[in-house]
């Protein structure tokens, strides 16, 4: 009954015969489907028309789409898969050397500090770093514990580096920049992959992953083991084991869920002989995280995202030193971060886009060694909105701001204003003004590191002790940028000149007026808001891919710095300031080139140059650093697998000094030539 819907097309035109004008000629529609009982429809193997009209779930939703570089309110460096592969990098910090204005140091063989515009120490704290929207910024010491990540560069889809403050969208600590690491969607890497790397310096690593799908669920499970002897000149062997899991569920065309879990642990050798504060010792790290994200498409242009995550970090780090009594101390702690955020994105019309949301964060840290057994917590609530508004064709305003309310601190408002003006299809100018803050870390706020008598844990002396109510460090930045986009040539050029003013610097000071419990050795290290620095500079980035087989990337930065920060308060009240002029290298330069020949051969080479710079606190003045890497690769395609073989020559041009440069104290990091071999087998 249902199938014989009958409608008729009215006869039309002049002089119709048979039926009255304009009246539908109705006929019974019993023509239908008897013959369908015959089996010919099963024999049919061609495509049905339904295939052309079927609905397809929206894959590139508002939140998945990147803002085009011509519209971004900042200079953004994108390190994509091609660049990752060409670079031959074996770690994320090595990739970040390609970003103009960035400096990378290895404090131990694998413990990296990544900073933008210098002013870094072993915990370079000036950048927010996220993996798939989860902040991995260490709430206790700041910076990122790169060696603890449960992630291989193989699973990185791209890294977006926002140069300059970006707190309006990423919150405080997005100070000198933001590094967003986006991992591959499991659906994009189906199958099994195994990778091994062996090399000089005791480099041994194994990595395996499997990505598959079941129903609407795409998942990936990855495991890794990394081992290294570190610098030849140091006791810094380490190894890490990790596992991670990602599941993406397309619950229905409108709802997707993402779950990520990860765990890593491993021992790391740290310290130096004859250093009472940093003796040679083994430090154990345990890290894990859980992340859940729900995206709901409200329409093609409207999306809601709810995200919850938790990070856990444990450093088990304490040691004993003969002074001549046996004294005990350490830097170990446990920390948690819980973060909940709701974001609403809407492409209101072709010229107006909005992303806004609310979030809450809870961080805690406790440790016998670092906080004298106390537990410190911090709550944050935030509200943010960013609007991209194309006022007229080619003129785009980006207005954004985030307000953060912190427990026990004054509220922070981080605004940003940007104007992008497209001169023509190829050339865009950009003007940006922004402000951002860096919250003191829990350690800077609450450091209470005491040297104990080992036998009965009696407090002997304060080593680090925070006594001030610290405020956030503040940066105000202005920039004029230019983006040249020449798709016909495969070329993109980004240039910017900027001026940054950083004030209320949270300085690591020695305060001789802090008296210890026994008054054995007056003075302790502490933290104070005291210092100002002005940085002006120029950054250039060139991406040139004339054909898909060739890649050239160039980065250059030129900076001029002046400023100082408090370093020492003597017992008579006099103060010594630390000159910051040399904490930023004047020029840095990086060049990466790669070409894929026929027959699966590929040769690529990277060169990095960094002018002399001073790494602060524990670090030293480091002379010019030059590093030249070469990679020779061969891809072998087989019926059911692809095999990639790579020879990696790191630092061909010979020895460089990294981070520590005090030969008199026997504290020096010498990075030597390294030859490595990497094999990647991917089963289809």
């Amino acid at each position: 009954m249902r199938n014989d819907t009958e409608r008729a097309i009215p006869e039309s035109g002049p002089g119709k015969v048979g039926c009255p004008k304009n009246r539908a000629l109705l006929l019974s529609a019993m023509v239908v489907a008897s013959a369908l009982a015959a089996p010919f429809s099963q024999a049919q193997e061609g495509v049905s028309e339904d295939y052309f009209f079927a609905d397809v779930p929206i894959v590139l939703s508002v939140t998945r789409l990147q803002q085009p570089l011509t519209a971004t309110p900042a200079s953004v460096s994108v390190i994509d898969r091609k660049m990752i592969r060409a670079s031959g990098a074996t770690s994320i910090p090595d990739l970040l050397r390609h970003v103009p204005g960035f400096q990378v140091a290895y404090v131990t063989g694998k413990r990296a500090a990544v900073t933008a515009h210098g002013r870094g120490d072993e915990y370079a704290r000036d950048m927010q770093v996220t993996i798939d929207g989860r902040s991995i910024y260490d709430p206790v010491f700041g910076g990122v514990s790169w060696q603890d990540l449960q992630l291989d560069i193989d699973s990185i889809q791209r890294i977006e580096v926002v140069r300059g403050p970006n707190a309006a969208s990423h919150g405080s600590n997005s100070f000198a920049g933001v590094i967003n690491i986006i991992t591959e969607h499991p659906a994009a890497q189906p199958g099994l992959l195994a990778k091994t790397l062996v090399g000089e310096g005791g480099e041994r690593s194994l990595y395996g992953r499997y990505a598959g799908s079941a129903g609407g669920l795409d998942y990936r499970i990855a495991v890794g083991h990394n081992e290294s002897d570190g610098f030849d000149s140091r006791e810094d062997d380490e190894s890490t084991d990790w596992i991670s899991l990602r599941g993406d569920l397309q619950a229905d065309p409108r709802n997707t869920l993402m779950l990520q879990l990860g765990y890593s642990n491993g021992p790391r050798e740290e310290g130096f002989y004859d250093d009472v504060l940093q003796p040679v010792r083994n430090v154990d790290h345990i890290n894990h995280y859980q992340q859940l994200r729900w995206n709901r498409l409200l329409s093609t242009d409207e999306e809601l995202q709810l995200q919850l995550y938790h990070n856990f970090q444990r450093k088990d780090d304490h040691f004993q030193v003969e002074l001549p009594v046996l004294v005990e101390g350490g830097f170990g702690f446990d920390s948690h971060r819980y973060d909940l955020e709701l974001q609403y994105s809407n492409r209101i019309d072709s010229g107006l886009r909005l992303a806004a949301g609310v979030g809450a964060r809870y961080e805690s840290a406790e440790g016998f060694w670092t906080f004298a057994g106390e537990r410190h917590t911090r709550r944050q609530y935030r509200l943010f909105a960013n609007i991209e508004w194309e006022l007229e064709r080619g003129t785009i305003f980006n207005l954004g701001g985030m307000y953060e309310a912190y427990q026990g601190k004054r509220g922070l408002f981080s605004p940003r204003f940007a104007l992008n003006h497209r001169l023509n299809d190829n050339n865009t100018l950009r003007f940006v003004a922004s402000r951002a803050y860096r919250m003191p870390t829990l350690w800077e706020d609450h450091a209470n590191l005491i040297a104990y008598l080992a036998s009965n844990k009696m407090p002997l002396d304060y080593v680090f002790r925070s006594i001030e109510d610290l405020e956030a460090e503040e940066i105000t930045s202005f920039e004029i940028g230019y983006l040249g986009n020449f798709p016909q040539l495969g070329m993109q050029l980004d240039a910017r000149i900027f001026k940054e003013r950083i004030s209320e610097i949270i300085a690591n000071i020695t305060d001789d007026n802090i008296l210890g419990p026994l008054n054995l050795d007056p003075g302790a290290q502490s933290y104070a808001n005291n210092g100002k620095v002005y940085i002006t500079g120029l950054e250039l980035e060139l991406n040139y891919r004339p054909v898909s087989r060739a890649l050239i990337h160039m980065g250059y930065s030129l900076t001029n710095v002046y400023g100082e920060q408090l370093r020492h308060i003597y017992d008579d009240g006099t103060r010594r300031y630390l000159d910051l002029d040399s904490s930023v290298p004047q020029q840095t330069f990086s060049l990466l080139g790669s070409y894929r020949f026929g027959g699966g051969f590929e040769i690529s080479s990277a060169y990095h140059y960094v002018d002399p710079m001073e790494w602060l606190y524990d670090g030293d003045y480091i002379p010019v650093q030059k590093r030249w890497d070469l990679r020779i690769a061969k891809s072998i395609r087989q019926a059911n697998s692809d095999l990639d073989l790579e020879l990696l020559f790191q630092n061909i041009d010979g020895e460089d000094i990294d981070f520590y440069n005090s030969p008199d104290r026997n504290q020096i990091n010498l990075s030597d030539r390294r030859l490595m071999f990497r094999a990647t087998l991917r089963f289809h």
Partner: protein
Amino acid sequence: MASSSSYRHAATASASVPQARLSHLLLLFALCLLLVAIPAQAAQKSILLLSSGSAKVYQRVSSSIGASLQRLCSSADRPGCAEYRILESTLDGDDTETSTDATRWNLVVTIGVKAANHANKRFPAAARLYTLIPKSSTADLGLESAAGSASAIYLDQPITRQLNLIKLAMAGDIRIGALLGPTTDHLRSLVEMASSSLNLTTHIESVANDDEIGPALRRTLDESDILLALPDPLIYNQKTIFNILLSSYHNRIPVVGFSASYVRAGAMLAVYSNPDDIGMQIAEVVESYLAGAEKLPRPQFPKYFSIEINRSVSRSLGINLPDERQLTKSLKSLEGR
């Protein structure tokens, strides 16, 4: 336009009120008897419009045919228009017996694959025009052997049109990537020839099973500037589309889709024929048949088409595309229209 909306209205009303439906049927049956009883005029042609189902897409095609025929026939120099009647019927897959005489139709126009297969068996004596049918599904319909009495208006777009569109949309030397599966593999040489005649280079991978899609896609994305998606269910389906659209986007390779929903999902653009486009073309063929053409024209690709652009995607990829109207116009003029 007015007539098409009134059909929809009638259909909805009858579906929702079963009692009314029954009385309608009785009335229809009576009318039917009446019509059979009155001898048809000698010149009058009977056309059966047979849809594969009652889905909206079929309804749109048939109302487009109605509207277009009405428009065509309203011009004075179309004498054939006066001499026909059309019956619309729907095939929904139930095995309801039909009481209609199979031999009374001069022309059977089918909409969709199911209706085509049905008509091929049931109405061998009538002229048959298969429409809304992918070319790959016409193999068993004997279009070659029954040329003149059987023809088709395909649903797929001609390769050259898609390549022209790519040329219009993208600047510079473009390398076109394509993944071909069992349904589309025979198009390889056609794609290569058409591309080279337009000074485009290609990277084409053949895929025989779904395990091969991942690696073939990776290689294609490495070697191409744009991915041309040709309708092949092994390659482009609900399971794979996520990977394909996401990986292409991440490699900054735009995808040319084959339907509007692919564009909504994340392809950058598509040329496709919607039901209205197809309906218009059917009406033209039917009109020329009515006007005395003894034979049906050769099977043809869609003449009318629409272009859909995902502006969010093109913008994000930094590709400046002309607007849809401009592209349609340029594409038509390239096709000599």
